[in-house]
């Protein structure tokens, strides 16, 4: 049976703002307010405010915290400096992805990890199962934190109206801890999932509504709009950021997903290392490609990809790109076909040529 859906601390605000609420990863989340395309454009041209409080958080602390994280994550954890964050994947022994995460380092012995909502409980159980001899504890802080993302070229100016934190000194993937709109203990990081500039804010759940209202009011004259999960998806796909369950999953490894840069074989033993090394050296059986279509039909998840009459893959994500004004997507394509100029995708019986992109559609 399905569990009752959780609500973020901003639920009442979403309703007040006229959001369309949908079930997502066990949560009631706003998929759109004014409309996906309008919200998408606002983020590219001004700024959007996203409630991403469904994301999970785990604190990992203890004498061996860095060594423990290096054992369970693919990226290099020990070299993260306090005040910085790093994107990483956490793999199974077979190289499939348990999750992709951002790891924030607070001190030599203390880290905060951002987890995908759909994986949060699984991730925490997985991490705890691997503690073994490491002197470390994994704390579930999912309920303690809300998360807001303020994204777009004007995000820094707007956030600067609400905080005295020196935003200009926060580097990409850096963070600072302080007060935002009167709420103390906020973690403000220069990270995002849109391909536009901006920040993500981890804040005590009880302060979330006050901070969100303050940001929306301060930002409105600058074009800040509330933005939902629909725009978040089209924004991240234009930027070619993976979404767990689509481009990466328990069956799609970081090597297949084009995330080889997050896999640091030289750091020593870690879960999944041998399987990933075999894929990296021998070439994976299939890999993820980004594409656009010179058509108006959108190739959705599950649509079949063909080389001539041979099925060679399937679509993982698909949407309309407001920036390109055409359909874009990702597909898992068998080795040997990823560079093919003759791939097509089947959409309701029509074979549409796939135009593979070598770079994200936004930088």
């Amino acid at each position, binding site marked *: 049976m399905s569990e009752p859906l959780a609500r973020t601390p901003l639920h009442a605000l979403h309703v007040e703002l006229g959001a*369309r609420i949908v079930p997502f990863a066990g949560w009631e989340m706003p*998929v*759109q307010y004014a*409309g*996906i*395309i*309008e919200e998408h454009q606002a983020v590219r041209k001004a700024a959007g405010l996203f409630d991403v409080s469904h994301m999970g958080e785990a604190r990992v602390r203890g004498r061996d915290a860095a060594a423990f994280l290096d054992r369970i994550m693919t990226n290099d954890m020990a070299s993260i400096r306090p005040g910085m964050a790093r994107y990483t994947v956490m793999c199974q022994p077979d190289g499939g992805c348990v999750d992709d995460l951002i790891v924030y380092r607070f001190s030599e012995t203390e880290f905060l990890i951002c987890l995908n909502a759909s994986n949060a409980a699984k991730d925490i159980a997985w991490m705890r199962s691997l503690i073994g001899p490491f002197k470390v504890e994994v704390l579930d802080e999912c309920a303690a934190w809300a998360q807001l993302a303020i994204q777009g070229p004007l995000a820094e100016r707007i956030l600067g109206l609400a905080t005295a934190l020196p935003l200009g000194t926060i580097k990409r993937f850096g963070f600072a801890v302080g007060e935002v709109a009167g709420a103390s203990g906020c973690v403000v990081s220069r990270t995002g999932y849109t391909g536009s500039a901006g920040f993500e804010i981890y804040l005590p759940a009880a302060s979330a509504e006050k901070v969100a209202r303050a940001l929306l009011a301060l930002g409105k004259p600058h074009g800040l709009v509330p933005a939902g999960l*629909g725009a978040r998806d*089209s924004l991240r796909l234009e930027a070619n950021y993976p979404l767990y369950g689509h481009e990466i999953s328990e069956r799609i490894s970081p090597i297949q997903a084009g995330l080889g840069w997050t896999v640091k074989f030289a750091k020593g033993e870690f879960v999944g290392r041998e399987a990933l090394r075999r894929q990296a050296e021998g070439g994976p059986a299939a890999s993820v490609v980004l594409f656009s279509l010179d058509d*108006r*039909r*959108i190739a*959705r998840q599950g649509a079949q990809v063909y080389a001539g009459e041979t099925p060679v893959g399937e679509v993982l994500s698909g*949407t*309309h790109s407001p920036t390109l004004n055409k*359909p874009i997507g990702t597909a898992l394509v068998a080795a040997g076909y990823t560079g093919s100029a003759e791939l097509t995708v089947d959409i*309701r019986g029509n074979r549409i040529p796939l135009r593979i992109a070598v770079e994200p559609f936004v930088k």
Partner: protein
Amino acid sequence: MSNVPADLHYTKDHEWIKVAADGTAVIGITDHAQAALGDVTFVDLPKAGKTFGAGEVFGAVESVKAASDLYSPVSCEVLEANGSLNDTPDLVNREPYGGAWMIKVKVRNPGELAGLLDAAGYAAIL
């Protein structure tokens, strides 16, 4: 609340049909349907001369979120597809009962209209 004009017939699948005195009709999707779909990016319509039975798929409407099939309310022959939706598919969001009509058809069996919902019947299922 969505808009349900009184002078149309409706399907459970959220199409409307407006019948003229000469036996032709225009077909589109309802205000409720366009709101549920969100931003419409493409409308896939049949060519003139195609025929469809009642309840058959005659096309599809794509929004950012999903593609939905379009079902013919009655047996018909397509006389014209609305070409303006090619360039401005978002008309479906703005004028679902006006500029965003989808196909103009010849109704083959006017008796089928009696099996459709009237405005009150359609409003009752929303």
